[in-house]
Structure formats: C-alpha cells, structure tokens
C-alpha cells in the first residue's frame, strides 16, 4: 500500500500520472475593495502595537530557529511556515508606521507597503498553518512571543475581511447566537435536562446565587454531552454551591480565534457579567484550551480591571479538590499518556494540575518524551480544525503527535481539552489509529468515591 501523502492528492482521473493542483482559496468576506481591505488590515495591525509588541517586532534576528519548533514547518519543510514569516506583514507594518524609524522607512521605501496579494497569500499562513501553540515562542533566543503576535495579526485580517470562510462563519454564528454551533439557551437547557436524566445526577440550572459558576464549551454540549453530567457529578461530590446559567454558559471564544477583539470581549463579558450577577467566587472553565487563555489571562483585560472572582480550568479545580480532600477518587490501574493542551499547559501555566489529578487517580502516568510544556500540538487549535481546506495539512502534522503518544506504549490517552479531543478523534478516524482520546474530567467523574462531601 502506498502511504498517503497529505500534501498533494493524486489525480486518479487523469490519463497520465498527475497530481491534483493544490487548492488555493483566498476567502473574502464583505464587499470592500482592495484599497479598503489594505487600509483596514493596516489600521488593525497598528492598533495592536505597544512597547511589548514593538520590542518583539524590532528584535527578530532572522535566525530561523522558530521553524524548527513549528509542527507545520517540521512536517512539510515549507519555509513559508516559519513562524516569524507568518507575521511578516504585521512586522512590515510596524516598521513602516509606528517603529522608531518609521518616518525613514516610509520616506526611503525601506520596507514595502502591504499589498492585497500579500494579504491574500498570508491568509493561509496566519490561519491554516498556525494553532497558536507557542512552541516557537519557547525556542526563540530573543524571547519573542511569536504565537501571541499571530493572534494579534489576525485582527488585521478579520477587519480586512480575509478570514477563512468556515472560521469566519463559526465566529459570526457565535457572535449572533452566543454559540459557535448555534446552541441556544433553550438547546442548552434541553441538553442539561437530558444529561441529568440519563446519568441520574442533579444539575442545578439558573440558580440565583452560587459560589461557583460552571460553564461548558459548545463542542462538549454538542459532541461530548456526558461532560455536562461529569462536571455536575464532580461539583456535587465536592459539595459546592454551584450552577449552570443559560444566560452565560459558552466558554469558547471564536472572536479571539478568528481575530475580532470586539466579539472576543462580548463573549468574555457575557460570562463575567453572569458570574458577577450570581455572586460567584469562582468561575470553573470546562475542558477547553483557548477558553482558559481567553478568560484566565485575557478576561480581566477585557473587563478593564481585576476580576472579582477566581478563574480555574476544570483540571485545576480537580487538582485543588483532590489535594485538599474535597473529593476522593478510586485507583485506576492503567498506564496513561497525557496530552497537554497548549493553551492550558504551555501558554497557560496550569501544567501541574493534570499531573496532580493523575497522581490521585493512581495511574501509571507515562510522560511523553519532550512532553508536558514542550509537547507537540494536536494541530487543531487556534481555529484550525474548523478550516476544511487545512485538513490535509493538519493530518500531516498529526503524525508527530501519534509518534509522541505511541512511544509511551500507554494503555490510555487522556487530555483536558474538547477541541484537542475533536482533533484527535478526527485524525484517529483518518489514520485508523488505535488510540482514542479520553477526558481527564470524565475519568475522575467515573471513579469518584462516595461520601467525600
């Protein structure tokens, strides 16, 4: 059997041996003309420049080490996937508009103004080939947070109407309905009732005042609804005063992923306002990576001041609860490989939490080689999994993940992010892989010991 080459498909219909020409899609939204798109991109690039970004954009040495850390480059050897190259337009704009020598850059034409062709070409680089996983940020000898710069650069692309269609539509749906998958409050309530019924668990909904506000991601609600029940079991066992709320249940933030800061703020504020309304002391985020980044580290800045409640990822909540004895779990006699979600562990700093949980579960935790904070990204984050045309690329890079997991020879594979889970499930099907991703939270819920409240 020939191996599947994820890059260019064979054209099996052609008379002689040929490859199908690669699809080059330059998705456009809106009816702005090229001039307007260029301006919008430029204005929204510029909006982001501050001392930190300026030092980053001024400090790049063109050493190319970031390419060696990026799964997209490593698996394709395509130099355009060099992380710092992805933000080249962003960098050029900085140097021309706001940098210390901007006047001279413009006067002497030392850097070209961004063209519409540039922006079209860069759509693929900024969206399809970056999961904002942050490995590049770790390797850069100048300490440049390249991944963060990609997120910022997307602001320009969004306002210029140059976002991959599926990602744009998903973000739009989230802005209009409150959920990227169009899950209305009614639908959510339905699912909650269904799960409460099916799993015979009490699930408080729309309680007026509670210490803990729990939220979910649409991916879980739609695809892995048992997460709802698992969350409830855990919070009940811990004896928390908690609730779900139909006026604030969506943890995902497609505004952040697609590059629309207004939509990002809206989504965050919805949760923040709900938490304040019910007097919550803690907001527990679900198994979702970027939700953690959006609320734990960026939420307060959307709010404009410190949040009046703690923000915890569910894995952090579990670690806390297990460490303090609020809940207890029975031992699970299995070997486990744990995939660290990029936004929770590497970028978010909550790496230790999952390890505490696994310790309490008594599993044989087989750390992956170069795992933990350095592990390979699942390839689906940053909105990439929504972009169909990026599937080939995403499957190609997933091989790194498969190798990394297989090396542990563990029985089970766990993670704590539903988007990673989606990415793993999709690739598992594509490659007929024998590892199926499980949820850390669900494993805890399944092994809760009675009488711990």
């Amino acid at each position, binding site marked *: 059997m020939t191996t599947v080459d994820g890059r260019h498909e064979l054209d099996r219909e052609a008379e002689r041996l040929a490859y199908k020409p690669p699809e080059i899609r330059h998705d456009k939204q809106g009816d702005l003309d090229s001039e307007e798109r260029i*301006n*919008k991109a*430029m*204005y*929204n690039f*510029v*909006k982001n*420049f501050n001392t930190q970004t300026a030092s980053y954009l001024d400090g790049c040495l063109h050493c190319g080490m970031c390419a060696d850390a990026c799964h997209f480059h490593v698996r394709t050897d395509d130099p355009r996937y060099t992380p710092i190259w992805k933000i080249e337009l962003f960098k050029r704009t900085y140097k021309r*508009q*706001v*940098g*210390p*020598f*901007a*006047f001279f850059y413009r006067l002497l034409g030392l850097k070209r103004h961004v063209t519409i062709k540039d922006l079209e070409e860069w759509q693929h680089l900024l969206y399809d080939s970056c999961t904002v996983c942050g490995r590049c940020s770790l390797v850069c000898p100048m300490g440049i947070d390249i991944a963060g710069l990609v997120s910022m650069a997307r602001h320009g692309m969004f*306002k210029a109407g140059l976002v991959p269609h599926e990602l744009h539509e998903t973000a739009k749906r989230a802005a209009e309905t409150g959920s990227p998958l169009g899950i209305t409050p009614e639908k959510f309530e339905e699912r909650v009732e269904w799960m409460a019924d099916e799993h015979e668990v009490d699930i408080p909904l729309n309680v007026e005042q509670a210490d803990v506000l729990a939220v979910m991601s649409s991916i879980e609600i739609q695809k892995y609804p048992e997460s709802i029940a698992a969350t409830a079991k855990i919070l009940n066992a811990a004896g928390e005063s908690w609730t779900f709320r139909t006026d604030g249940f969506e943890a995902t933030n497609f505004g952040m992923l697609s590059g629309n800061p207004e939509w990002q703020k809206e989504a965050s504020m919805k949760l923040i306002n709900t938490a304040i309304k019910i007097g919550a002391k803690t907001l527990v985020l679900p198994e979702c990576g970027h939700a953690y980044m959006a609320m734990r580290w960026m939420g307060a800045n959307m709010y404009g001041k410190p949040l009046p409640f703690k923000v915890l990822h569910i894995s952090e909540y579990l670690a806390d609860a297990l460490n303090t004895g609020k809940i207890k779990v029975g031992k699970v006699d299995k070997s486990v490989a744990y995939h660290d979600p990029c936004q929770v562990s590497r970028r978010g700093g909550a790496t230790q939490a999952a390890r505490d949980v696994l310790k309490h579960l008594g599993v044989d935790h087989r750390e992956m080689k170069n795992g933990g904070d350095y592990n390979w990204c699942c390839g689906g984050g940053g909105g990439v999994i929504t972009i169909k045309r990026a599937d080939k690329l995403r499957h190609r890079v997933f091989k790194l993940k498969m190798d990394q997991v297989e090396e542990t020879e563990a029985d089970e594979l766990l993670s704590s992010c539903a988007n990673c889970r989606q990415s793993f499930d999709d690739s598992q099907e594509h490659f007929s892989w024998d590892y199926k991703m499980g949820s850390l939270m669900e494993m805890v819920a399944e092994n809760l010991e009675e009488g711990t409240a």
Partner: protein
Amino acid sequence: MKYGPTVGEVLQAKGVSRRGFLKYCATTASLLALPPSMIPRIAAAIENARRPSVIWLSFQECTGCTESLTRSASPTVEGLIFDAISLDYHHTLQAAAGEQAEAARHAAMEENDGGYLVLVDGSIPTANAGYSTIAGISNVDMLMDTVKGAAAVVAIGSCAAFGGLPGADPNPTGAVGVQDLVKDKPVVNVPGCPPIPMVMTAVLAQFLTFGTIPDLDKHGRPLAFFGNTIHDRCYRRPFYEQGKFAETFDDEGAKAGWCLYKLGCKGPTTYNACATVKWNQGTSFPIESGHPCLGCSEPRFWDKGGFYQPLSTGHFGSGAKLGGAAVAGVALGVAAAAAGRRRQAKFTKEA
C-alpha cells in the same frame, strides 16, 4: 670647484688605520643592506671622494641634532668622516660670524654650484618671517636661496623633516618642514628627535659612494633605516605577544623588562632603526632603558596622543559632546514614539 685633500688623505693624516677604515665601510655596507662585494666600492668612493661642500642651515632648532652628531666620548670614524667633508657653513661649529659667515656661505654656493649638499635642521616658520632670522634674513628666504644650486637637501631631525616641536599644536609660528617648501630639489628626510648619528652618516656615505640619494619611503625617509617599525624589531616583542606588560614604571613587569605598550609605547607605528642600530654605538635605546618609544621619527609625533597614552586609546572628544548626542537621541526617540502613538490613535479611530 674648490678642492682640498681627499677624505682618504684626511683619515690617513688623523691616524685611522686601513683596517679600521675598511671595518667602517663593511658596517656601512651592512647597514645599507648592500652585499659584501660593495665594500671595496664604498671604500674607494669614500677614500677618493673630494670633500664635498656642505652647507648646514639651522633654523628653529634646539641644536640637539648637531649635538647628537658631533657628541663623542672618543673620536669616532663617523666624526672623522664628518671632518672629512667640507663643512662650509654651520652656526654652531663655524669659527666665522656675522658678515664673514654669510660671505662664506655665498662663496661655497658659487664655487660648488650644482654640487653642494644642503643640510637643514630646525623647522622653518611661515606665519611671520620675524620669528626666526639669521643675519636679518628670514629662514624661508635663506632656505629657498641656498637650495637653488644644491645637488640635494637633507632635512636632519624631525623639525626639519616635519615641523617638529615648533610645529606642534597650536603651531604659533606656522612652522613647516623642508619638504613643504622645497619642491624642485631631491629632499631626504632623516627624522628623529634627534636622529641616530649612524643613520645620518650612512646617508652621506650613500651619497658619496653612489652620488644618489637612497630609496625613500612615503615620508621621504631612507628605507634602509626607516623601513621597519620599532615594534617589528623590538627585543621585547615576545612579551607583547605573550600578553606580559609593564603597568607602571617600577612594577615587577617593568623590572622584568616586559613590553611597554601599556605605558604608551608608540613602537608599532614608528619607523626608525633604534631597535637594531641603537644609540651611542649600540649601547641601548629608549625601550631597552625602560622608557616607551615616543615615536619621534614620525610626522607630528607631539600631537598624536600623549607619550604615556597607549596607542589604542581613542580620542572620543568631550563628554559634553557625547552628552549632547545622548540628548539628541532621547529627543528623537520621544519624537518617534509620539509620532507612532499619534498614528496609532488615528488608525485606531478608523480601524
């Protein structure tokens, strides 16, 4: 031409043995980097040389060059050779004075027209003729007048070659060297403050032997003596390479004879024969005696940083100017940031 006894006859009369004379010719040949086969030719040339007429002009000088050349504890061959030239005019050494002296100069010029040597020590003031006159004649006038019929001009010492001490900043007398004024006669510079006596006489010997001036470097100095730097011939060079330097004049390094670079030695940029020929018949030279080379055979050596300032010191200019540059930089930075912010505000509105 006025003829007297030949140089050989004079030497013989003074009791110089044939052997002693040949030994001198051999040394001279060696110094001039000539093969041994040239020794007889040098000997013959000097022996049979008619004592050429030499007019020595002294301008703004300290007489150190003359002292160097004529000082001797016991009669030396060089000294005797000097006696063997017809020194027809020399302020310090001549017996005549006043009108008589000037008359002697003119007589020598007329009688040896086209064949006499002019030796000059001291710089020539050009700012005001009154700074230095001899018999009421300005230095410039005397120089230009005297060289008219000269075969060649030799500038003895750094003052005559490059302006020397009088020419040092701020050079109030407008002192210049011979080569800055005399353009139509061959000029040989024998700089040094003072020059090594043997170097002087070797140049004369070359002229006597071949009737030509030696090969010169870009500063008009004979390559035979000014072709290498002190640094490249210095016996302390290994210490330089090993990184062993005297830090003060009386520390252990100084006592051990280590390199004097850090004490301001200008050896690397100074071309002269001090490290090989040395002084006082090969007794020693400044570095060997523990003092860094001043670079005295180089143009404007008085103004090339202090004698005790190491060669690799930069001349940064005033701290005030540097402070000014800093202020300018800050101002530009503030302006750039302000412009950047303004642009940002403008774009944010339109974003």
